[in-house]
């Protein structure tokens, strides 16, 4: 069974972390992953940096620019991760924009991910219909779960479509914004969280965007299976360095 599906069956609220590969330093990627697992993180989104990350706010933009300046490339990331399964057993998801994957070759990219032991992909700008028309068969061949996003503006009909096309979890974007721009949840989020919970989707939901401490984590996971922290973690790495990952995780849980 795919590691993501296994993880979703655990009887706990899941804490997942996004970070940009090759940041703060090119060779921090593996250490960050190992430290996150050692500190009880349930799942990791490894960000493949992109020059034009149009769904990201300044924090992740800057980390992506820095990672690219550090020399990060798709090939280098795959090289860094080639032995990752010798030391890490939690689900690993690659998250990035579609163009670098397209240039690598979608099938070659998926094959490489499978060899490494990547469990799923999040490509925000690879839309559902293009995925289904052109790439679903390839993802399935390599048992890579494609994770789709929904937002407070996504219609019920569209959510049901996405639920039907998914078989790992649904990435529930908490608020209409790019990453890292808002923190804390208001009434709109509560209504949205309740609305999605009432839909009884077949896939568990993991909430992302706007989670930066233990209270937002608790709020996000009242109904949802788990939550993802991205910008707040990157900010922590920028300000306090890789050695302080345990402190960051303790703050949340």
């Amino acid at each position, binding site marked *: 069974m795919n590691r993501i599906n296994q993880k979703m069956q655990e009887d706990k609220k899941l804490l997942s972390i996004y970070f940009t590969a090759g940041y703060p330093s090119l060779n921090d990627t593996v250490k960050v992953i190992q430290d996150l697992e050692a500190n009880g993180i349930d799942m990791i989104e490894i960000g493949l940096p992109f020059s034009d990350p149009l*769904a990201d706010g300044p924090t992740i933009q800057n980390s992506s620019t820095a990672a690219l300046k550090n020399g990060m490339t798709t090939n280098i990331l795959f090289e860094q991760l080639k032995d990752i399964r010798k030391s890490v057993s939690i689900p690993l998801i690659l998250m990035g924009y579609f163009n*670098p994957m397209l240039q690598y070759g979608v099938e070659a990219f998926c094959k490489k991910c499978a060899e490494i032991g990547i469990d799923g992909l999040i490509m925000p700008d690879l839309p559902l219909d293009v995925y289904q028309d052109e790439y679903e068969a390839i993802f399935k061949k390599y048992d890579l779960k494609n994770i789709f996003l929904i937002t407070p*503006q996504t219609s019920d009909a569209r959510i049901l479509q996405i639920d039907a096309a998914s078989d790992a979890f649904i990435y529930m974007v908490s608020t209409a914004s790019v990453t890292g721009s808002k923190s804390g949840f208001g009434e709109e989020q509560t209504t949205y969280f309740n609305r999605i919970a009432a839909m009884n989707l077949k896939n568990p939901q993991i909430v992302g965007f706007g989670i930066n401490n233990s209270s937002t984590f608790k709020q996000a996971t009242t109904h949802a299976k788990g939550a993802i922290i991205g910008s707040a973690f990157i900010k922590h790495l920028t300000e306090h360095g890789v050695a302080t990952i345990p402190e960051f995780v303790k703050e949340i849980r």
Partner: protein
Amino acid sequence: MNYNATEKGYYGEFGGAYIPEMLYPNVEELRQNYLKVMVEPDFKKEFDQLLKDYVGRPSPLYFAKRLSEKYNTKVYLKREDLNHTGAHKVNNTIGQILMAKRLKKTRIIAETGAGQHGVATATVCALMGMKCVVYMGEIDIARQAPNVARMKMLGAEVRPALSGSRTLKDATNEAIRDWINNPVDTHYIIGSAIGPHPYPDMVTRFQSIISEEIKWQLKEKEGRENPDYVVACIGGGSNAAGTYYHFLHEPEVGIIAVEAAGKGVNSGESAATSALGKEGVIHGCKTLLMQTNDGQITEPYSISAGLDYPGVGPLHAHLYTSGRGEFYSATDDEAMNSGLELTQLEGIIPAIETSHALAIFKHKTFKPDDVVVISLSGRGDKDLDNYIKYFNL
């Protein structure tokens, strides 16, 4: 072969809507409505009326006698520079602001390179009393100061794009991020024939008034609707798309595109996308794109802020790969000299973008009886500083 967008917004293999889910409701709303709205009699009436009384259309099709003599062919200039706000951009912003009103949007955002689209957007927002935010690369803000002042005077807020190369590409990223952050009340007026479907098709249709007029104007002057060639400069490609539109399926009309070669196609400082680009995804569409082997988008260069874009509209990518269009590129020097030449032969100072189209004569020889229509997409007032610096005027 078909050169119009398919229902899903593809031109051959290019186009589509590669957007994050956050943008899906906005783009889908537009996709479902744009064609319906555009054929509504009320919409058409208001659009046509504004183009006539406010923009000043039809724009003249002018026989450039001295330029024709110099290059021993028959050159007509389609005078989009005479439009209100000084370029073709306003054709599209008039259309899109009317579209935004029908979709009940109250706030407008736009990206701009040379500032022409920003000015055209700020203008229609003033006209309609809508709130307007224009994103512009920090570098472009510096090199197009008069247009920045115009936008501010028109009541728009000009927000600098500080990321990446701080030019048009980055302004577009910032505008898209704004739209993600404001999904309900905001319409994004994209200024070029780029972006996710339906934008390339919608922008092309609003700009198609250019070729619609060329047809009947040429009939009056030459007794035939179809020229032998239509020529336009291409950054994202909105004036080109409008200039070509009604000739795309007329095989006897040659379609010529001139891109910005910057300091030379192979100099590393260029924006000649057809020569340097590979298929890729930028700003929501699949097209030809300047990028590294690794799929990172590279930073283009051109002396002209309006052509300084690493991609090209999907229609143009299709025209290039299918062979329907002939693609050339003009260097900064060729463009500047062609701009000066037009000024001194015809008394018309063109925008530096447009000067690239005029540089076609440095690359191609036409026959004496060829009828060549060049889109004079914009006037050069905004570029005076650059002309002064370049020629030490």
